[in-house]
């Protein structure tokens, strides 16, 4: 079964998070986390997020090993947040939960 998985990471972990995402990304572009977030919706960027359509029984299990930071044996590997939209989350409700906003355009 496939679902949208949303992952939010702190800006400081972006490089490591992109490297870990590439373990599961066939494109291996290092560009999984490029969309910025912040508490005010204005610069500077404090977090980044991605929304990834993936199989929950295979790829998602592997992704969680690296992105469920607090349950990882290394502790807060990315201090990240992982959400499964098939469980009722929406991008809007996730942003409300984590108290972040997308960087707003000029208009």
């Amino acid at each position, binding site marked *: 079964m496939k679902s949208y998985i949303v992952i939010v990471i702190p800006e400081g972990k972006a490089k490591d998070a992109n490297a870990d995402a590439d373990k599961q990304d*066939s494109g291996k572009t290092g560009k999984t986390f490029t969309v910025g977030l912040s508490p005010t919706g204005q610069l500077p960027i404090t977090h980044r997020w*991605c*929304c990834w359509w993936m199989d929950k029984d295979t790829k998602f299990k592997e992704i969680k090993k690296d992105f469920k930071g607090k349950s990882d044996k290394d502790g807060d590997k990315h201090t990240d947040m992982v959400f499964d939209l098939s469980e009722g989350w929406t991008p809007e409700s996730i942003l409300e939960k984590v108290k972040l906003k997308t960087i707003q355009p000029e208009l």
Partner: protein
Amino acid sequence: MDRRDFLKKTVKSMFIFTGALWIPKTGILRPSIAANISMMGGGVSSAPWLPTDIAGCVLWVPSEYAFTDAGKTTPCGNNDLIYTGDDQSDGNNDATQATESKRLIYLTNQLDGYPAWRGDGVDDGLSCDALAPIFSGSDTPMTVFMIYKIITLESYGRFWGFSNIGVTVYEQFRIGAYSYNLFRHDGVAFVSELGTVQADTNWHYLILNFTGTTLTLRIDGVVDIDDVAFDVGVCTFTTFSFPDLGYPLNMDHAEMAIYNSSLSAGDMTLLETYATTKYPSLP
């Protein structure tokens, strides 16, 4: 079976009758030719009328032409991620996305039996940067034709965007779902225009026609922004994506075509007729 029945069966197997025209898989018959074809046995075959029949088409991606790989060896099936949108303009301006999380989803049977490409509104978009430079300059005409459905209303996401990422003074030409806001910026001057507020999540089609100095936006065949002045200085675009990767939009996409010219009223009517004939559900 007599000749008349044979031809009738043959035509039926190759085309769909819409009540006005027989439609091949993609496209419609040229109206001038179709008018001369006897539906019941004329036996005249004709190339379908397609958006590429208008001069200056540099990109045409109907949703049927999606692949899961860069080499275009595996056509997308339902729920597959789209790596490549295969440009049918012959300009080889394929739209691609290498990063998995940013790929659109291919969904079958979304509009009159045709598939759609869905962007999640978070980070999805197909890139076609090769197209960006052709709109650089100060008075460079362009036209965009799109068949789409917005899923999340009141979003700042944008259908598409030409931009120059990485420069201190940004340059953009974008259209967004939020009141169909259009703006162009060359780092010095900034112009914008607001159209009708998007109020539903139904399928629509639009034509944005930019003469280089004025702008017209037609939605569902009706003029929404009528030839307004829309001009700034020299812009240098380096990226083009849809939905705009800078401000992604939660939307479905059925077709997009881009022209490196301003279209005549007659050409715009042909495009609109093409849209409503291929997709009878459109308004």
